[in-house]
């Protein structure tokens, strides 16, 4: 089962499943088994932005006047987001590309992961403006126990899938013994690992960012750190698109619209997938306690932030076919929505921060009616 970068067997990509079919050969988008991924690529490309386009120079002054507990909240969140995007900037590529079988999905994964690298670069952009030398902030990410604890949970499903795919590529299917431990390298078991990994990624994109988003937008509500908030708003818009893609993948499996075996796997792993989601929610609540350990900030405290996590978790769980698990059914932070609206409103064109101006969003659909008033 060696991976080949150009599979020379003639396969019909319209008959392939999303994963574990024949590896992709021609990167063609004229026909698609799942057109949604092509649409997501177009949407993501239309969202393209660069951190340098957003002016964050005022944030330095704002930061100086923040209390110590507020500084702790702001910096810890940036560190955590840096971790999340470090993982997401590489892992979808490493974990999913070797097993993907559809050209449109392959390109979506690359586009998705690339946009996460822009997020990572924007954290450096924000921190460089606040500190003369942001080195210690980055160094702390791998030593801070609160961040490390969550890093383990975020990366373990990826790491497990990657390891088993490597075994499959080198040894093929079978029971494989490595360092005295026997690994069940069967396609069924790998599909199970893929399903759990996708659920863990979905939970990451769906809720893990939101504690941090809420804090940043709460600062923006008080008109502090507005440059950073503009950047985080662009990131939130991207993440909302990414979660759409993981929800699509999970739903396509669950409803048997892709690989029929994945439908069985989805049923088998339902409880485990549910637990992945619930434990992500619990970790985010723990993170909220850590953020507010030195005191809260105006407009936000631990309780209301935990309620928001539960509220958003309910929405996200329903999207992948679970019953809402938490009692928080109304939005405790209604002002959050104003920052999550995808900004498609035309504002003054000189405002380079307004994302709709960064790229011409061209509508290439032409209907016969558009020629109605043409005379020849």
């Amino acid at each position: 089962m060696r991976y080949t970068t150009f599979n020379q067997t003639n396969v019909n990509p319209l008959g392939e499943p999303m994963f574990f079919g024949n590896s992709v050969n021609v990167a063609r988008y004229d026909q698609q088994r799942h057109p949604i991924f092509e649409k997501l690529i177009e949407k993501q490309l239309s969202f393209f932005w660069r951190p340098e386009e957003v002016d964050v120079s005022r944030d330095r002054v704002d930061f100086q006047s923040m209390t110590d507990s507020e500084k702790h909240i702001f910096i810890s969140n940036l560190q955590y987001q840096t971790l999340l995007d470090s993982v997401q900037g590489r892992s979808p590529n490493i974990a999913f590309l070797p097993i993907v079988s559809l050209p449109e999905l392959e390109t979506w994964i690359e586009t998705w992961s690339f946009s996460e690298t822009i997020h990572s670069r924007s954290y450096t952009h924000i921190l460089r403006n606040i500190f003369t030398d942001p080195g210690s902030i980055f160094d702390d990410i791998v030593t801070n126990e609160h961040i490390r604890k969550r890093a383990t949970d975020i990366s373990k499903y990826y790491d497990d899938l990657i390891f088993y795919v490597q075994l499959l590529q080198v040894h093929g299917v079978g029971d494989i013994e490595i360092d005295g431990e026997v690994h069940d390298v069967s396609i069924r078991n790998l599909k199970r690992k893929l399903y759990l990994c996708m659920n863990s990624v979905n939970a990451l994109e769906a809720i893990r960012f939101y504690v941090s988003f809420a804090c940043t937008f709460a600062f923006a509500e008080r008109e502090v750190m507005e440059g950073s908030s503009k950047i985080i708003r662009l990131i939130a818009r991207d993440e909302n698109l990414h979660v759409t893609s993981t929800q699509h993948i999970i739903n396509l499996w669950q409803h048997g619209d892709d690989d029929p075996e994945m439908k069985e796997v989805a049923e088998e792993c339902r409880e485990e997938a549910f637990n992945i989601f619930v434990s992500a929610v619990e970790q985010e609540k723990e993170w909220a306690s850590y953020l507010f350990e030195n005191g809260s900030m105006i407009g936000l405290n631990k309780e209301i932030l935990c309620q928001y996590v539960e509220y958003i978790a309910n929405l996200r769980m329903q999207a992948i076919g679970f019953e809402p698990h938490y009692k928080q059914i109304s939005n405790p932070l209604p002002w959050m929505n104003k920052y999550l609206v995808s900004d498609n409103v035309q504002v003054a064109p000189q405002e380079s921060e307004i994302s709709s101006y960064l790229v011409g969003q061209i509508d290439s659909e032409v209907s016969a009616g558009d020629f109605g008033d043409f005379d020849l």
Partner: protein
Amino acid sequence: MSSTYKVQVNKLPVVEIATGQSKTLLQALEAAGVVLEYHCRTGFCGACRSTLKSGAVDYLNEPLAYIRPGEILPCVCIAKSDLVIDH
């Protein structure tokens, strides 16, 4: 032909919304005082996802978020008839 459709959300009192394409169902319901969940308002995040109990809608923009049979995204559709919605 009447120029409004009657819409009921979550067994709340029925509201009337204007027909036509000037407002999405989400905007029309907000104008009528019904509060729905939303994030992106452009059909990709799925936060406004609702179940259509009866009636029909037309999409102004194709939704990107996953919608199961019987579900609608009010932020990118308009009413085509009287509606009953669970949100």
